[in-house]
């Protein structure tokens, strides 16, 4: 099977998967006791008003008609309107998603770096006190309930030490707006933004050159070709996007990720605030997830370290760090990568407890809210969204896997 056939079949397989998922959710939430219609009436309810609301929500139709209505809407890319507040579901999901994504990215970074570092350390001192301590740490963090760890950190760092905030995404009135400028008039932060982006570019190029130099590799013609084509594509995109905004007379780029938007805005104060608000939730989630990575890294490393090529590398007199991180870890990395993909997908949907503990306005909280309101369309929409997201993430993981390990493509 070639890679292309593999990708196409994977993408095609997601369609029945999402269909099955959707059908199950559709049936389950309707089987659950509770009626979304009644929740629209705070106190007293009149029978005519109830009937009117039922019609408005489309719940007066037979269930199969509702099902096909929803499916056809979905085919047109329409997720429907909320049964609670009648606003479009797609809009609501996209407004909540960046918060969850940002939390997921940072906690995965924390979980993976803690996990790999401690896992490797543990495998290096196999069966010694250090190994046992790390393993116990891994089990404890894995077993600890998220809300408990979250509240513990809140009490220590927010209430007692007062270093970090208790919850929320940023200080009130401090939401970054992203890069926003009218093209006739440059904003105040523009010079700083320019300086910053220059500095960022400088740093990246320094790092690139350093990496190239350290690798001691020569730039081949093939790599040069790839680089030039990538730059060309980016340049075309840039020009196209630029033209789009110039024609609108205004430039506005906002990702919804506060750490990125504040940099785009060129406001480091907002950036620092966003980071301050991110530390506790991402640390909580990262710590809890790190347990899995510690154990996975440790066991894979233990297997790899015993292999001949590691012994050979050691025999060649290479430094231990180079052998472990440069040779052994690279080979032990595949299962970790899979786990990363799976965990990241789970994080996108499953940060519910963290989001509640830290009042983080993301998708997890959205779903909990909507289940309480029996907001059928919102729950279905969120599930479809998650289904697509999870399949994309696992597809990307599989592709990376296939790229890193050619045996998979067989």
């Amino acid at each position, binding site marked *: 099977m070639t890679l292309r056939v593999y990708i196409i079949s994977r993408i095609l397989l997601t369609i029945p998967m999402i269909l099955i998922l959707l059908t199950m959710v559709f049936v389950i939430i309707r089987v659950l006791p509770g009626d979304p219609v009644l*929740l629209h009436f705070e106190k007293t309810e009149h029978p005519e008003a109830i009937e009117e609301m039922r019609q408005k929500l489309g719940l007066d139709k037979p269930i199969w008609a509702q099902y096909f209505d929803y499916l056809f809407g979905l085919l047109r890319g329409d997720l429907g309107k909320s049964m609670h507040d009648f606003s479009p579901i797609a809009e609501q999901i996209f407004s909540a998603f960046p918060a969850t994504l940002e939390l997921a990215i940072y906690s995965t970074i924390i979980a993976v770096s803690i996990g790999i570092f401690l896992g490797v350390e543990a495998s290096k001192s196999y069966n010694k006190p250090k190994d046992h301590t790390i393993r116990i740490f891994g089990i404890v963090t894995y077993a600890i309930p998220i809300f408990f760890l979250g509240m513990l950190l809140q009490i220590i760092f927010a209430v007692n030490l007062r270093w970090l905030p208790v919850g929320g995404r940023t200080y009130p009135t401090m939401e970054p707006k992203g890069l926003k400028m009218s093209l006739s008039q440059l904003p105040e932060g523009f010079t700083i933004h320019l300086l910053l982006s220059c500095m960022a570019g400088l740093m990246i190029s320094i790092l690139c050159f350093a990496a190239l130099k350290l690798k001691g590799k020569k730039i081949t013609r093939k790599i040069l070709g790839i680089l030039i084509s990538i730059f060309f594509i980016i340049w075309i995109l840039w020009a196209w996007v630029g033209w789009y905004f110039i024609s609108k007379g205004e430039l506005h780029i906002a990702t919804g990720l506060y750490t990125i938007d504040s940099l785009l805005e060129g406001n480091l104060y907002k950036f620092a605030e966003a980071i301050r608000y991110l530390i506790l939730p991402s640390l909580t989630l990262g710590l809890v997830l790190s347990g899995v990575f510690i154990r996975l890294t440790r066991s894979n490393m233990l297997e790899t370290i015993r292999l001949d090529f590691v012994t050979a590398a050691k025999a060649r007199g290479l430094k231990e760090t180079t052998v472990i991180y440069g040779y052994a870890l690279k080979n032990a990395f595949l299962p970790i990568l899979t786990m990363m993909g799976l965990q990241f997908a789970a994080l996108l949907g499953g940060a519910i407890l963290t989001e509640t503990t830290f009042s983080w306005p993301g998708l997890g909280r959205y779903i909990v809210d909507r289940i309480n309101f029996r907001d059928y369309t919102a729950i279905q929409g969120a599930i479809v969204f998650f289904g697509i997201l999870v399949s994309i993430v696992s597809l990307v993981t599989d592709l990376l896997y296939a790229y890193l390990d050619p045996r998979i493509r067989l």
Partner: protein
Amino acid sequence: MRGTRAISKIAIVGIVIVIIVVAAVVGYFLMQPAKKESVLIMGTTDTVESCLDPARAYDYFGWEIIQALGSGLVEYRPGATGAAEDIVPALATSWSVSQDGLVWTFNLRQGVKFDDGTEFNATHVKYTFDRGIGIADPEGPFVGIGYGDIIENVTVVSKYVVKFYLKIPFSAFLSLLACQASYIVDPKYAPLNQVVEYKAGDARGSHPMGLGPYKLTKWTRTAGRDEEMVLEANPNYWNATGGYPKTQKIIIKFYADSASLALAIDAGEIDIAFRQLSAADINNLKTKTHLKVWQGTGAFIQYLVLQEKRPPFNNPIIRQAVAAAINRTAIVNTVFLGQVQKLYSIIPVGMFGHTDVFLTLGDPNYTLTRQLLAPLGYNETNKLTFKLWYETSGHYPQSPQLAQMLKASLEASGVISVELEGVEWTQYRQERIRETMDAYILGWYPDYIDPDDYIYPFLHSSGGSWLHHNYANPKMDQLIEWARGNTTASVREQLYEQIQELMAEDCPIIPIYQGSAWAVTKSNVKGVYLDITQSWRHWLVYKE
């Protein structure tokens, strides 16, 4: 060779780190906003449930914000009890009522302007009520309270005089006008046939008010849940010359639950935490010296409803026996840690007309329970058995514990056996409509602050039909209608006394407890009034 490489690597990393740190530090100080102006930051776990249009908004927090953004013809003075003399002028300076109680005339305050500069006059009053009754949003208070059943029409007499013609004499009319559903809207922002809903990025366009102490300058929601609100003083407020509002800017932050709200006030992140702190969190915050805990009379009540359609509760004696076996002291102390008060009438304590009628049935009086049940054949071996329903979704505070405690106190009589059944809120409402529940616990927040709002929706045969308890007593209906139609305070007080006595006899509903209003603030916050109106008066609160 390897040595020099390692050094250059370290050097590069070092330089990069130094650059980042310097840039961050310089940037942080460059971009730090100027010294923050004097603001109050409020924290809450509430959220606006539908919108900020009085034609639809029917939730506590929606009304709290409407009160900050708008004004009514009349309002309650701080510390009110719901009596007629507590109602003070707001947009109307004086009023009178005709002999038959059907025509109310209001003289309006002159020279008042909306926040956009439009001058306020009688046409706006007419527009507001015509619009609310005309839209007749099934979710909204105009239908819920039944404005259309009370008001015949609103007539503009002159620029500053407006007349309300009523369909029925309605003694609580001033209270109705003082509630947030009756706040005046700005026609420029309030289309006649359409409810104003949240518009992302357009705080002014998201509400139709404009006569209140504050302007809404920012309102962000993600996924249908509030994230941040900013209120700024309205220079056109009719009482601006009186020095209100006392705080120029109020920021409202939204927390997911009581625990995170309590941590936030403890950590000093917010100046005020108002709704909903759990009993345990409040007890904990009481021990902090840098905080002040404010307790006020609450208007929230919880009660037990009995199904009278079928045995056993079709017999008033059995209902009385159950009422006599409720140990309110135990409930208040164990379930709510002493933070609510015992309630012996459907009209809450602190409200005009309240009498402790259920106290005569005991608290608890198990001898009375046994005495009442013995002739009916119920005793230690043949116990009175029924199912007690409660909701489990946290719609009301500590529901499962309350149900447990009720069961324990009823069974302590020795002749009653209770089976508990907890269901989720959505299903709970369905079961209520299907009349499947023999006994169930429910709660009530008032719409307008008047005893009528605690009597008519519960004890009147048509007003109380939403409870599906099938209670109908013609004598009770007659008394309630008299009390609704009479505007003399002393006569009403007498009628309410009779109504409550009759209620204790019939026992269709057994009051359990009355909640208190709680707010926790930093110790330098002043001007908090928590009275039975349940209003948070933003414009009186300030920081010293």
